[in-house]
């Protein structure tokens, strides 16, 4: 990393605690993107021919597509030829069989991040899949999960061990050509997580994936696929960090959720990619496609996201409510500080009868951050009795930031009921002084107000992560006032 000299920057360096670099021997593909790149990745992973074909089809479609420009974000044009599409810790090879095969430096990295891989040290009840740059390095608690019939493994392993499931569901929620970044991901995705919860099974523990970008000039393109078979339930969490670097890195992930009859998936994200420095140098471009397909009756999906990192966030976790009585929920806290930009929201596509959706979006803008909520509620002709409630609140800290709301509502069935509430407020000097005069320090006063603002979303997170999210917000807002 280039040495940055000014005091301000070193201060910010301290704030982003996950900004260290792991010095590890890496296998690295030189920058560039062509059919050969796609073939290399597929070959590296020993994939079957059908999957290579699937990737190549995506790549060809991608070449014909235009990068979208409609989001309320501003960034220099990305040169896709200057990115490396493959980086892996050398020792990982085909993936470690046990913890003793994992490079000790990797274990150290994850310990620093507070995610010990040793199962005995872990929070009881959380299984973790860890993705380091392009490959998954370790999945914990496999045996216990297997006993319940739950499959939780890296994507590569799933392709080898459960090809029938992958073939059936891959791309069935987010088609290869869905959008520019999804097509790119479909062509070059390197790894990710796969979860299958069998019929009538309640997953015995929380599942979690931790993504870490380490290598320089590398994109991270992972895929997550979760299938909840009829009557099953799973709670899934993903967390993300990256080292602090001066150049931008691209993260273009795809997450597909399939929910069958009476099944439920609770998907929580705490995203803390490196946000860039005070002047907007560096940081992750987080261009992600997440979608859930509620195929069955009474299927339920709940997305909860806390987005504090990334230079640019472009992400709309969505729900296709196909099954009768199916339910979609979206709870979001998005924070932008310094020069961060976020354009995030959700899409609720109501197709089935009596489908219901709830959207609660909390945007916080500080410094010169720009925060946009963009949401679509579509009630199809077939969605008799559909209901949506949307609440969209913005909180401004300081006078140089911005908050924007772009709600799209399309209703084709007159029995539907759609509500939208929005508010914008600002942390005022008077509020801060009031709290300070009571004995509460300035930063604590800001945190008190911000946490109060986000409470509705935090209560949707699993307990441990709610605590982590609160801490993350307070760290991300350091220096926002004063």
């Amino acid at each position, binding site marked *: 990393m280039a040495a940055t000299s000014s005091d301000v920057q070193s201060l910010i360096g301290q704030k982003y605690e996950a900004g260290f670099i792991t010095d590890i021997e890496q296998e690295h593909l030189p920058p560039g993107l062509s059919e050969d790149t796609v073939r290399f990745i597929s070959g590296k992973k020993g994939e079957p021919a059908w999957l290579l074909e699937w990737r190549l089809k995506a790549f060809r479609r991608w070449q014909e597509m235009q990068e979208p420009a409609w989001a309320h974000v501003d960034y220099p044009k990305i040169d896709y030829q200057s990115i490396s599409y493959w980086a892996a810790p050398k020792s990982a090879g085909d993936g470690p069989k046990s913890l003793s095969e994992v490079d000790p430096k990797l274990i150290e990295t994850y310990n620093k991040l507070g995610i010990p891989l040793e199962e005995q040290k872990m929070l009881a009840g959380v299984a973790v899949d860890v993705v380091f740059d392009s490959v998954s390095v370790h999945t914990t608690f496999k045996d216990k999960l297997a006993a319940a019939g739950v499959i939780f493994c890296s994507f590569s392993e799933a392709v080898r061990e459960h090809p029938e499931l992958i073939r059936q569901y891959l791309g069935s929620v987010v088609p290869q050509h869905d959008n520019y970044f999804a097509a790119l991901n479909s062509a070059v995705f390197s790894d990710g997580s796969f979860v299958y919860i069998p019929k009538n099974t309640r997953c015995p523990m929380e599942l979690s994936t931790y993504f870490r970008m380490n290598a320089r000039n590398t994109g991270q393109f992972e895929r997550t696929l979760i299938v909840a078979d009829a009557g099953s339930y799973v709670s899934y969490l993903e967390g993300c960090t990256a080292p602090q670097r001066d150049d931008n890195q691209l993260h273009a992930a795809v997450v597909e959720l399939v929910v069958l009859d009476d099944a439920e998936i609770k998907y929580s994200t705490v995203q803390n990619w490196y946000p860039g420095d005070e002047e907007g140098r560096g940081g992750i471009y987080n261009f992600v496609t997440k979608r859930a397909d509620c195929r069955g009756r009474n299927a339920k999906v709940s997305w909860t996201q806390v987005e504090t990192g990334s230079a640019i966030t472009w992400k709309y976790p969505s729900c296709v409510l196909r099954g009768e009585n199916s339910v979609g929920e979206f709870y979001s806290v998005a924070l932008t500080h310094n020069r961060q930009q976020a354009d995030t929201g959700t899409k609720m596509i109501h197709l089935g009868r009596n489908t219901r959706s709830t959207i609660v979006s909390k945007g916080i803008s500080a410094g010169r951050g720009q925060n946009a909520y963009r949401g679509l509620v579509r009630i199809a002709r077939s969605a008799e009795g559909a209901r949506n409630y949307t609440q969209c609140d913005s909180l401004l800290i300081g006078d140089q930031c911005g908050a924007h709301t772009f709600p799209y509502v399309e209703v084709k069935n007159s029995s539907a009921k759609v509500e939208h509430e929005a508010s914008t407020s600002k942390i005022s*000097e008077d*509020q801060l002084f*009031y*709290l*300070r005069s*009571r*004995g*509460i*320090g300035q930063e604590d006063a800001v945190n008190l107000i911000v946490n*109060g603002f986000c409470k509705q979303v935090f209560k949707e997170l699993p307990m441990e992560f709610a605590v982590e999210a609160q801490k993350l917000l307070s760290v991300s807002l350091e220096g926002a006032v004063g």
Partner: protein
Amino acid sequence: MLQIENLQVEVDGKPILRGLNLDVPAGQVHAIMGPNGSGKSTLAHVLAGKPGYTVTGGSVRFNGRDLLALSPEERAGEGVFLAFQYPVEIPGVNNVYMLKAALNGIRKHRGLPEINAVEFLQQVKAKTAALGLKESLLNRPVNQGFSGGEKKRNEIFQMSVLEPQLAVLDETDSGLDIDALRIVAEGVNQLRDPARSFLVVTHYQRLLDYIVPDVVHVLAQGRIIKSGPRELALELEARGYDWLLQAVA
């Protein structure tokens, strides 16, 4: 306890306080009265450390410490409390939760451990009852949707929980009907203590029927122009301020 000497304060370059002297010993209640625009609220705000006021001269000592050198939260930690004339609404922040954070902030300043949650709630319940405050207000967001009277009562309630050494009441009587006024005054009187002082800023002598002061000061044109016993307030009510202002001029 509180010693103010020759205090001079400007707002946006305009002098508001012009050499104010005031001495409030421990255990006493002092009332500050005066015409509109005389600087009463400015004095209250400056004591609590509100930003936006420039102190251009003089000193304020609190228990011997230079109060003006402290941040608002440090002043609270030292035992200063301001009951606001217009308590601000803070959406999303639970009233009791805020109060607990405040109490712990003050305890931290004093090197004390955080208060036990059960003990805190017991204290809160007892004080709510003593002030006739609806318990439902406790778990609502700070001041949000409170009536004018509820807001003022909430200020006194916070004061009773935080147990300051010096309480500055900035027109706590404004907007209160006579019943609410009595309840608020009783709350204050319950807290009177040989170790605690009150600075009561008010327009009307009516409040002083309930909170009987030891000394009444008249603040006009940025200075204390007259101080006297409780009867001075009655005289002001009968005669207004003009005779005093003329005497000074």
